[in-house]
């Protein structure tokens, strides 16, 4: 029940002293119910320019074919698949936050899951556009579906990881969308009941007639738990299958059994970095510091250290196994990666993914907002280079030295990539305007147990262990949204 007290040792998930249920609604709906501020417009116009660039570049690719890209007959996959894997990886954090953390009963997920899931959906949209545009003849995209012969091809090859990937990505996208939308229903109903006129009618349609009665809520929680339970293996399977696109081939540097866990860890790593990049700005601009607190930021940074270290171990293991396998092609592929013509990309990846995230071991750095924000961007640069290194360096040295080549991106390659970032941010900024960026109902659930005000009340009542209270007050020092003077006199 909501009235149970939580241990004082746990850091608060909602800060501030005057938080009520009504205030949560008002704070979260502030950007939805009011006209956007200038920061939003600047961001939106910039993103829209990016999205326009994307339309131009993808249109150009469709018209002239993928010859418009810098590919050659040796390097037949480059920025397209790099971008695809990068975006799918970013998407994984949303599902991880909404599903895995729900299974583990991590209540801090409640205030970040909504925007992280939205990010998942937009990232998977960006990834899917790469899949379609790299096909060359996108109007025949339906050939990846298992359709019978009279459609012009044989049945698809069910032994192919690319076909598995089609099933994995489309399942992932549609299940994530269902999970996200079902979670949104109560919050859309909140907007509906506060709105008037046309807005009310629109939100009424999208709220599916939600009224928050007991049975609906009870079933809602059952459905969320089952969806979380099935999304957890789903998210692991998606990046496993993405990695199999490479691992089942016989290209040195791709043909390794370590790929699935290594890709999944990398995906979580980059996804959490992207969540931080977005939310650190959003919490400031939208004034949500009381709900997305330093505890949330620090927890995400801890996950980044963990997954970043797993990725680091994977890089080293890969190198070791290349030597230990005794296969000279494998050995060459790795020596060439780190010292060949693409050495700078390899060391960029190593620095951004393995070395710089280790800075987060320092508490000062992982609780500093500017440092965290910069590191989150560094991680995403590093993860983009990881995919580039895996894909291009393994391909550019072909079996015959006469066909060795380098990859040089054209303006179209660059525009598709930069444009996809524009598409992503355009969608995300629109989301912030029309839907609540924090799951209000879920935050209201923890107000009476995990908020700072409730804990302060308990301290004032004075039945708590003094040592524990001291530890709790010390833990509050890092919070930028806590008024420290409240605690000075205790």
């Amino acid at each position, binding site marked *: *029940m*909501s*009235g149970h007290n939580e241990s004082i040792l746990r850091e608060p998930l909602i800060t501030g002293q005057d938080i009520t*249920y*009504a205030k949560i*609604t008002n704070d979260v709906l502030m950007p939805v119910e009011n006209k956007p501020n200038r920061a939003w417009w600047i961001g939106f116009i910039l993103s829209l320019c990016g999205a326009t660039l994307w339309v131009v570049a993808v249109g150009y690719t469709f018209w002239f074919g993928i010859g418009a890209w810098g590919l050659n007959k040796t390097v037949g996959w480059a920025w397209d698949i790099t971008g695809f894997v990068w975006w799918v990886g970013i998407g994984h954090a949303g599902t991880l936050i909404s599903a895995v953390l729900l299974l583990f009963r991590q209540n801090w997920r409640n205030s970040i899951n909504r925007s992280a899931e939205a990010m998942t959906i937009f990232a998977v949209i960006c990834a899917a556009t790469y899949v379609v545009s790299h096909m060359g003849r996108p109007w025949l995209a339906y050939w990846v579906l*298992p359709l*019978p*012969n009279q459609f012009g091809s*044989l*049945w698809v*090859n*069910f*032994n192919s*990881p690319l*076909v*598995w990937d089609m*099933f*994995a990505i489309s*399942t992932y996208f*549609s*299940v994530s969308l*269902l*999970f996200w939308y*079902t979670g949104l229903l*109560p919050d859309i*109903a*909140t907007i509906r*009941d*506060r709105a008037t006129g046309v807005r009310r009618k629109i939100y*009424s*349609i999208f709220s*599916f*007639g*939600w*009224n*928050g*009665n*007991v*049975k*609906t*809520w*009870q*079933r*809602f*929680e*059952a*459905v969320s738990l*089952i*969806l979380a339970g*099935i999304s957890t293996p*789903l998210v692991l*399977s998606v990046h496993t*299958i993405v990695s199999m696109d490479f691992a089942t081939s016989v290209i040195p540097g791709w043909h390794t059994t370590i790929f699935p866990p290594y890709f999944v860890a990398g995906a979580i790593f980059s996804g959490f970095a992207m969540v931080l990049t977005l939310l650190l700005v959003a919490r400031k601009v939208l004034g949500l510091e009381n709900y997305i607190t330093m505890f949330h930021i620090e927890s995400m940074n801890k996950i980044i250290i963990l997954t970043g270290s797993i990725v680091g171990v994977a890089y080293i293991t890969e190198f070791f196994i290349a030597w230990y396998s005794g296969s000279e092609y494998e050995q060459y592929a790795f020596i060439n990666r780190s010292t060949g013509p693409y050495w700078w990309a390899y060391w960029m990846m190593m620095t951004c993914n393995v070395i710089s995230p280790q800075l987060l071991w320092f508490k000062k750095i992982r609780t500093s907002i500017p440092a965290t924000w910069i590191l989150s961007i560094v991680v995403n640069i590093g993860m983009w280079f990881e995919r580039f290194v895996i894909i291009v360096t393994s391909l550019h040295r072909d079996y015959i030295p006469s066909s060795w080549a380098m990859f040089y991106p054209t303006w179209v390659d660059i525009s598709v990539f930069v444009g996809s970032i524009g598409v992503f941010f355009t969608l995300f900024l629109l989301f912030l305007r029309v839907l609540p960026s924090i799951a*209000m*109902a*879920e935050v*209201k*659930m923890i107000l*009476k147990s995990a908020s700072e005000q409730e804990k302060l009340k308990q301290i004032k009542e004075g039945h708590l262990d003094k040592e524990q209270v001291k530890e709790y007050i010390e833990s509050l020092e890092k919070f930028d949204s806590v008024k420290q003077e409240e605690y000075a006199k205790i």
Partner: protein
Amino acid sequence: MSNIKYILGSFGDPDDLMHGIEQLQANNIKIHDVYTPMPIHGIEAKLGIKRSRLDILAFFCGITGTMSAFALIYLTSVVDWKHNIGGKPALALPDFIPIMFELTILFCAFSLVGAYYASTHLFPGRAPRVMDLRATDDRFIIAVDAQTNVDHGKIDGLLKDAGALEVKHNERKYISYE
């Protein structure tokens, strides 16, 4: 007979709401429904809401997905059109697992959510049946049918004693209709 259809007790705190439910039940007053802005744990036991059977449905639909995927792959690449891939057997079961797994999840998720929407009457454009507009914001509402429970004064008293901030007598069931 008065025109009042429903008596609503509007609470500002979930614990008071639970107390209100206990008070009404102790006095044998039947509660029509309770509307809250967030899920409240333990309330379904009090109101006698049965355990959801959606999990059973999800399981069987998931299994149907597994079977469908296997049937699709088997009938196409083993029966209908065998591919010769390096002389390997057409019935390559390990290769079928990823798609069987994905379709398990897909069928499970869609049928689960579909059944949830159907059983709680949620669909796009459905007219919201709302008794109090603040029930999705910051109030916890107990609704009592005023036609069958005639002693309105007693109900008001019980709700107020339990901590209701407001007691409303609604002449219309759903105020959300135009």
